[in-house]
């Protein structure tokens, strides 16, 4: 059984078809890249999978269960976490609390435990703290845990978003342009990080990215979208030699220039 299976997904905004007949099957442990020109509907696919907007038609099957119609927080709790294209951290909270806030989803305690700081509360909080440290160490932010998230440099904010997503213990991680605005050095370190967390936490990763270096390097399979439709699919090699893709990106008659 595939981990995620998206069938015939469509989304209309007014008269505009933003996503049309989108199909995707992801097996456990895969890294799939979702690429395409700006406005192709990639982020809309993420929003549909995470339940932020309801699809016009189609189904999203995650571990054998249809997610369509569930509220976002329920979908998240089932094991789908995401990051955002335009970083959406909890800016005035500390780095540590950004991660801890999400850890509670699986490590909760009741209202009265919280109100009275019961022994159960203390035990859970210790677990949460230890886990949060572990995640911050993974993204190398452990020394900044007390700083407000807004004070981090841009690249660190992107990594904190990844740590926060990992706090959800996801099976599927959706990364929306994780390398946007990073310099080549940072991209290289991010590539390593994604590979590392994929192995460490046994993740399946779907990522949107414009930095072809990162996509070609990481992804086993790439899906290309344009005008809401899938126009090509295959290994990085296949995709980068596909004339339809080149046309979508560069216009007719463009020359291939691989990464």
């Amino acid at each position, binding site marked *: 059984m595939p981990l995620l299976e998206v069938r015939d997904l469509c989304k209309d905004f007014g008269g505009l078809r933003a996503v049309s007949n989108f199909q995707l099957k992801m097996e456990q442990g895969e890294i799939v890249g979702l690429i395409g020109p700006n406005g192709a509907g990639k*982020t809309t696919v*993420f*929003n549909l999978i995470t339940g*932020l*907007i309801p699809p016009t038609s189609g189904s999203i099957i995650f571990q054998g269960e249809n997610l369509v119609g569930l509220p976002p927080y329920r979908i998240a709790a089932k094991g789908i976490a995401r990051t*955002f*294209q335009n970083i959406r951290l909890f800016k005035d909270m500390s780095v540590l609390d950004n991660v801890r806030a999400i850890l509670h989803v699986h490590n909760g305690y009741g209202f009265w435990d919280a109100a009275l700081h019961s022994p159960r509360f203390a035990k859970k909080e210790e677990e949460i703290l230890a886990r949060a440290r572990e995640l911050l160490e993974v993204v190398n932010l452990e020394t900044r845990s007390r700083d407000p998230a807004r004070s981090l440099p841009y690249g660190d904010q992107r990594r904190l978003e990844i740590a926060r997503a990992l706090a959800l213990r996801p099976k599927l991680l959706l990364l929306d342009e994780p390398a946007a605005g990073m310099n080549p050095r940072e991209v290289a370190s991010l590539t390593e990080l994604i590979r590392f967390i994929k192995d460490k936490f046994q993740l399946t990763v779907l990522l949107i990215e414009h930095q072809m270096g990162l996509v070609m390097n990481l992804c086993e399979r790439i899906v290309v979208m344009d005008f809401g439709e899938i126009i090509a699919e295959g290994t990085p090699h296949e995709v980068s030699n596909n004339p339809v893709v080149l046309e979508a990106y560069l216009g007719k008659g463009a020359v291939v220039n691989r990464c």
Partner: protein
Amino acid sequence: MERLLEQIINGLQLGFVYALIALGYTMVYGIIKLINFAHGDVFMIGAFIGYFAYTFWGFSLWGAVLIAMILCAVLGVLIERIAYRPLRYAPRIAALISALGVSLFLEYFCSLKFVFGPNFRVVQPPVKQIHWNLGGIPITNIQIIIVAVVILLLLVLQYLVYRTKIGTAMRAVSFDHDAARLMGINVDFIIAFTFALGSALAAAGGVLYTLAYPQIHPFMGIMPGLKAFTAAVLGGIGIIPGAVLGSLIMGQVETLTAAYLTSQMRDAIAFLILIIVLLVRPSGILGRGGPEKV
């Protein structure tokens, strides 16, 4: 039937007065996203100036309207300069608290004995009320004056906002301060101008109000201000026709409740309707709150 018509016309009169106040709220909100709580008090000061002008200073009604509009425009600009502009880049709530402070200041300052004094004053309007019956519709000359003046001001405003350069600049600033500034628009001036315009309209509303409801006091601005703001929200805040539509609805609701149900409950019913409308249309009747962009 006669009675219903009379009430609807009374509601229209009230609604049009609310509309003048609501426009100031909605324009200021549209341009700096501030609920200007002091606006109701500008309306009150407008009413007082009008009253002084036609009672003691020998102005005609039109002179009184004009002088109230001018003085309140100056007051509006002053308020913006002193209490809101320094907070333009602070959290939005800070300006709101400042607005509350200005509102309280105006109310208490005007209550001082050497200003307007804390008591009710009964106004002798410069126009004698005459009842007419136009083809079965009972109407007074004051109602005609109010409706005509408000419609005239609305037309002027419509022209100003949609047909002139400064109106275009106002709309640009309400979309995006920074982009407007980059296009060479003097944002500070446009904001001050918006306050002047809104305050002048509220002042006109205040003077007209004294004709229809001839009793004034320093706290008279609170409830009409609140109702007018509610009307602006009802219609969709930031949208000029929305403010007028909301005010007309508010006027009808209030007069009809007072006439047919109970006058004590009219405030409650008005706000109940607001809450229900917001639940169905969270950004007001004419508002277009698109989904948040991810």
